[in-house]
């Protein structure tokens, strides 16, 4: 076990735990944001740099600070380590920089993007970004392509988190897409416009933090905050599929089926394409009850749970926001 202090809060965690997971054990207020790390996918993380933290003391044995900010998702704790996340000005500055880099070529087409409302990049930029853009260069764009009947790839929105590639490698039984080209030309592609045809391919939609991979069966059907998420399950004939899903209702109609996402936005268990795309009748499912959605999420805006009146803004707050 190792004792580690993050933003002044001490916790004891098993050896080998990453700083990020230690912070998650403390809670969401302390946990650094992530865009590429995904606890269910091996070797994920390290790419986006949003979870950078400052290690002010390396360990009990060697209390020197680490010279650079480190990716908390890929750095394991040491006994006596002291970490600053939200309390570090350096981290906040670097993180604002990362947000700006991620948005540099992102289209900001949220009003027409299906991911809006459950987009991690939206959340990240609200929480950690600036309210101004400092670039006037044309953004990088790609043609939309269908990879298979049910999935659309809109590469323009991609932030190259590599999650979908790792999903294809680790969850499906044959990867046909990957990252092509390099630098800011890099793109997710099959190169030959091959369909991703696999029982578990739909999971790439769930792991995508932005609207680059979307469910074509749900496309433009509704804004996510107008739908009501309900936990449901079925005895799936695919033995690798848990059959535990969330049904997204509008009225009586199931608009889409997804995996169940935890408080970090990661699916609890992967589901098969049959459950995701072909079972859209209430009668296909055993209903468990309403899905609990964090009340700060925009998805809960139209909801029946824990509605709280927003805090009234004071003049100072407004000044801060518009600065």
């Amino acid at each position: 076990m190792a004792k580690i202090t993050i933003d002044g809060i001490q916790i004891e965690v098993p050896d080998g735990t990453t700083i990020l997971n230690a912070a998650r054990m403390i809670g969401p207020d302390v946990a650094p944001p992530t865009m590429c790390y995904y606890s269910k996918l091996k070797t994920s993380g390290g790419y986006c740099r949003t979870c950078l933290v400052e290690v002010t003391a390396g360990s009990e044995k060697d209390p020197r600070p680490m010279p650079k900010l480190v990716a908390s998702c890929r750095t394991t704790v040491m006994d006596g380590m002291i970490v600053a996340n939200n309390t570090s000005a350096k981290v906040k500055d670097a993180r604002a920089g990362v947000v700006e880099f991620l948005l540099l070529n992102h289209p900001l087409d949220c009003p027409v993007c299906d991911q809006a409302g459950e987009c991690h990049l939206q959340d990240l930029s609200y929480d950690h970004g600036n309210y101004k853009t400092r670039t006037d260069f044309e953004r990088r764009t790609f043609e939309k392509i269908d990879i298979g009947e049910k999935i659309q790839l809109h590469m323009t929105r991609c932030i190259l988190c590599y999650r979908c590639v790792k999903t294809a490698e680790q969850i499906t039984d044959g990867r046909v897409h990957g990252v092509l080209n390099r630098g800011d030309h890099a793109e997710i592609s099959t190169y030959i416009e091959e369909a991703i045809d696999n029982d578990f391919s739909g999971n790439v939609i769930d792991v995508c933090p932005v609207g680059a991979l979307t469910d074509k069966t749900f496309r433009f059907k509704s804004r996510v905050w107008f739908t009501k998420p309900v936990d449901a399950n079925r005895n799936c004939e695919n033995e690798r599929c848990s059959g535990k899903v969330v049904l997204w209702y509008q009225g009586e109609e199931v608009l889409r089926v997804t995996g169940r996402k935890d408080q970090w936005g990661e699916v609890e268990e992967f589901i098969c394409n049959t459950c995701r795309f072909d079972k859209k009748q209430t009668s296909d499912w055993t209903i468990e009850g309403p899905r609990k959605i964090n009340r700060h999420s925009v998805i809960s805006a139209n909801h029946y749970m824990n509605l709280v009146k927003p805090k009234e803004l004071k003049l100072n707050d407004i000044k801060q926001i518009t600065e």
Partner: protein
Amino acid sequence: MGRKILLEHIDVPGINTYEVYRSKGGYASVEKALKTMSPQEVVEEVKKSGLRGRGGAGFPTGMKWSFLAKPEGVPSYLVCNADESEPGTFKDRYLMEHLPHLLVEGMITSSYALGANTSYIYIRGEYFYLVRILEKAIAEAYANGWLGKNILGTNYSLDLYVHPGAGAYICGEETALLESLEGKRGNPRIKPPFPAIAGLYGCPTVVNNVETIAAVVPIINMTGDEYAKIGIGRSAGTKLISASGHIKKPGVYEIEMGITVEDFIYSDEYCGGILNDKKLKAVVAGGSSVPILPADLILTTANGEKRLMSYESLADGGFATGTMLGSGGFIVMDESTSIVQNLHTFARFYHHESCGQCSPCREGTGWMEKIIHKILKGHGTLEDIDLLWDIQRKIEGNTICPLGDAAAWPVASAIRHFRQEFEDFVKNPSAQREVKYYFHCNNIDTAAAYSSL
């Protein structure tokens, strides 16, 4: 004349062939190491020599070797980094072309020290003609019993192979190099684990630069203590410097560390002074990624001492007034050079070479290039200069590998020491007419990009 160790026999006709190389005492270090020393003793000699990595980072080689994990039943590898791609650096190419056997000999002695039975030389693809030269040297070494099974009748065996890359600066980063050697994209790995624990095929691996490996030969021949006496302080030994740009005699020079920068630039033994006897304006002393320094600061430190060609002296003053020895890529610019235009070639280079894995480097390098290009084209504003500063600051230190830093430092130093030139481009649109030398910017349609400005 300065003392030559690596290039001692460079002028001997036919030194690239086995017979001539051997007749000049070649492969003596292998004999000495395999017959009279234990692998650990070889490592100790290298430690004593004070040799530091010649690829750019300057990490003590002996220490790097001693980090190598030695688990039972797992092979370990030595990989030579011959991916030399740092703009301004061509010493490894020179060494491999003229003294291929020196590298082969160094590989054998070093592999023995590390207990590696298979070693690779990863060479950049553009140097394919050198693959031919090295393959020939290796074949000769096999034929004469220096490679293969039971070398010199000992129970030590070694296979040595050359592996070409295919055009990617990033593969000079050691973990990207290993990825590439495994047949993958040259994406740097996230560390830890370091290669000494899990490198090639997950096995303990040491990656060393060509010049570093070559330097092991004289170290074993003359002993580490003797080698440590050459040079100055912690900058032990000799260093190959690739001199280019506006000088009378560009080329590769072996220097004893500690000679003055002034001597290096102006003496006839080395660069021979500035081309056409113009005035010196600036120097990039250690390859494109190290900070550029104006003439006064490269010749003397901020304290007024003469600047020396050594790790410590070049770094004197930190990044505020100093730079780095880096890979020894010494690029000299005369008074007519536009620093902003030169910076654009660097910025374009890093934009082109970013692997695209992590966001600050992937997006930031392209952004910086575009802004510099915009300034060059006369569309820049004073805010753009500050923006450039802020972008490089947010890339530096926040990326997976040092390419981010390498892209940030030239920008930072150009603004730090030559801000006036940037402002001239902004304030005086006619300056732009003086832009004689520039190519198109990567993936920008210039006409469209500035039509609205």
